[in-house]
């Protein structure tokens, strides 16, 4: 029986006096409500009736690799579309998330454990059912453990890749020997005044300030000495760069000879034929990136997508595109020929050679240090 026939019968009963006016209108209203929830608008109310998942990342070649190796096969299998957005920095993205509705953003390619901790502390974390992500077993265990430690055993992300922020230098002007001898202090060398660069990120500046004053970046005792080192660097620097593209341009155009830089970006410069060296000083800045799942996301759909993204063929393709080693454990997965040549790659899968930022320590000082750096950066 179709809906029209049902309506005609109901009206006939009302007309015959078999049902009262109140009941007639009540049944009409119930029919309307039942019809409403099966309309497209009604579909929005069903949390598990997912038609699309949103992913936000750094764009460029990484995005293309995701699209080809993960998103399109995922859509072909599940029928769920992946909406691919980009952001310029983790800070900018967090500002966007703060102003959004829950569920508007789903997965983000975030940097560092401290970003994970920030999102968790602001109440944006979800709880993944790792049984739905079998490829998570292929990931280096240490990378997973640090996230679990932040969010009390629950996991809101899967680790994806790692790298370092080391020293990048133009070999035409600075030899490998000089770089190894001076280490992080080369950024304070008067000889290179006007040819020194630096990332305008307070964490990196303070980390390198700690190295330049022989302190443990995860346990700084003399903060005044660090600020003085940052001031000295500021006065010698030509420019604080704000993006990977700007970093590469400044080095490639020889506007600067030395700066700290992201391992993957420097590798890309080397691939392009520029004679740029890369050196990780002792206690150099190691970091990892993850795929963070926001609270309010359709978890089953997102977990399946994460499993696609962690599949070795996807992880390796993305790693080769962005020049950062994947989070996959080399003792469990054959990573091919290019990845073992990438800077920061650890063939043992233990990552014991890298120093990561302690999220509790750095996030605990974030409010004070980020504000103070803003002043020091501008000449104070």
């Amino acid at each position: 029986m179709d809906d029209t026939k049902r309506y005609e019968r109901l009206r006939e009963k009302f007309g015959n006096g078999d049902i009262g006016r109140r009941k007639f209108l009540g049944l009409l209203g119930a029919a309307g409500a039942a019809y409403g929830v099966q309309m497209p608008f009604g579909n929005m109310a069903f949390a598990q009736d997912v038609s699309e998942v949103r992913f936000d990342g750094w764009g460029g070649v990484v995005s293309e690799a995701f699209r080809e190796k993960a998103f399109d096969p995922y859509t072909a299998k599940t029928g769920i579309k992946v909406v691919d957005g980009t952001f310029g920095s983790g800070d900018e993205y967090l500002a966007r998330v703060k102003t959004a509705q829950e569920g508007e953003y789903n997965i983000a390619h975030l940097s560092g454990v401290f970003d994970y901790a920030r999102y968790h502390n602001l109440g944006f974390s979800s709880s993944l059912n790792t049984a739905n992500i079998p490829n998570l077993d292929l990931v280096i265990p240490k990378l997973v453990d640090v996230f679990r430690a932040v969010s009390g055993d629950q996991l809101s992300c899967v680790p994806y890749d790692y790298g370092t922020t080391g020293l990048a230098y133009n070999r035409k002007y600075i030899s490998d020997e000089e770089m190894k001898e001076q280490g992080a202090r080369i950024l304070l060398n008067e000889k290179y005044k006007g040819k020194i660069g630096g990332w305008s990120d307070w964490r990196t500046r303070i980390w390198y300030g700690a190295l330049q004053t022989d302190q443990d970046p995860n346990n700084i005792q003399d903060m005044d000495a660090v600020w003085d080192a940052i001031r000295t660097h500021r006065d010698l620097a030509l420019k604080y760069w704000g993006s990977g593209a700007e970093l590469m341009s400044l080095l490639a155009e020889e506007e600067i000879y030395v700066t700290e830089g992201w391992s993957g970006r420097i590798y890309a410069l080397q691939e392009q034929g520029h004679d740029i060296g890369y050196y990780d000083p002792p206690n150099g800045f190691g970091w990892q990136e993850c795929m963070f799942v926001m609270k309010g996301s359709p978890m089953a759909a997102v977990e399946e997508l994460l499993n696609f993204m962690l599949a070795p063929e996807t992880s390796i393709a993305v790693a080769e595109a962005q020049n950062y080693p994947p989070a996959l454990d080399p003792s469990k997965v054959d990573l091919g020929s290019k990845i073992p040549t990438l800077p920061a790659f650890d063939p043992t899968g233990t990552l014991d050679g890298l120093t990561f930022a302690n999220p509790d320590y750095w996030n605990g000082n974030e409010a004070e240090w980020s504000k103070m750096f803003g002043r020091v950066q501008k000449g104070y």
Partner: protein
Amino acid sequence: MATIEQSEKRAPWVLLSPALVTIALLLVVPLMFIVVYSFWLRTSVGGVEAAFSLANWQEALTDRFYRDILISTVRIAAITTILCAIIGYPVAYFVARARGVNRGFLLLLLMLPFWVSYIIRTMSWINILGVSGALNSLLLAIGVIDEPIQMLYNEVTVILGLVHFLLPFMILNTYVSLDGIDRALEDAANSLGANPMQTFWEVTLPLSVPGLAAGAVLCFVLGAGTYITPVILGGPTDAMFANLVFEAIITQLDWPLGAVLSLMLLVVLGAVVLTYNRFMGLGQIAKGIG
């Protein structure tokens, strides 16, 4: 009769109501949100706590850091405005005196920069003034210099970028004013014995001041509120006030302080606009950009 009068009185408000509602929703209401935020507090993890506190206002108004950057911003905007006036006036005069197809062509050239992204236009200076940019390459090729000169990433390049961005606003406003001058007045001055220079100083320039002032106020307000130019063309210490707002809101997640800094900039720039309105009237700006 009274009903017709009342209806006539109401008519402008009825006609204006769509615009008023739009302005209220898109400008006044968000501004009120910013005012409310300015009294709230940042939590330790970067959230906001609804409260009534004057701490952010006290910090922003008493800390020398914010005052110095504000003064520096006003100084850079003022220098930019003066340079735009000096460079833009002769161009506007030339366009206003051009005839026929030439004038249309020149006006089209003035509009062309607006078709290219402001960021792209700003970044183009890196290719011109960079160590391996066009100017250094030329100077090296003709033997004027032996090694590239470091020209980028200082206050001068920030001002250069701002002048590049704002010059069309100055020229268009001045052009509108010059074009509206009755040429018979200049002819009268000449017939009374004034030479061309006297005619310009005594007649043309005073009559074009409203356009020049409209261009100046636009250049100043847009220049003082700029964010991207110092980021692209500035050195480590070349920040302007809008950069502080960005850092407070995006980097430090301190939205309440960012709200206070936004309002401070709004008050300073609003005072400039109100001063202009007191003497010239805002209608002149509408002519220039309309």
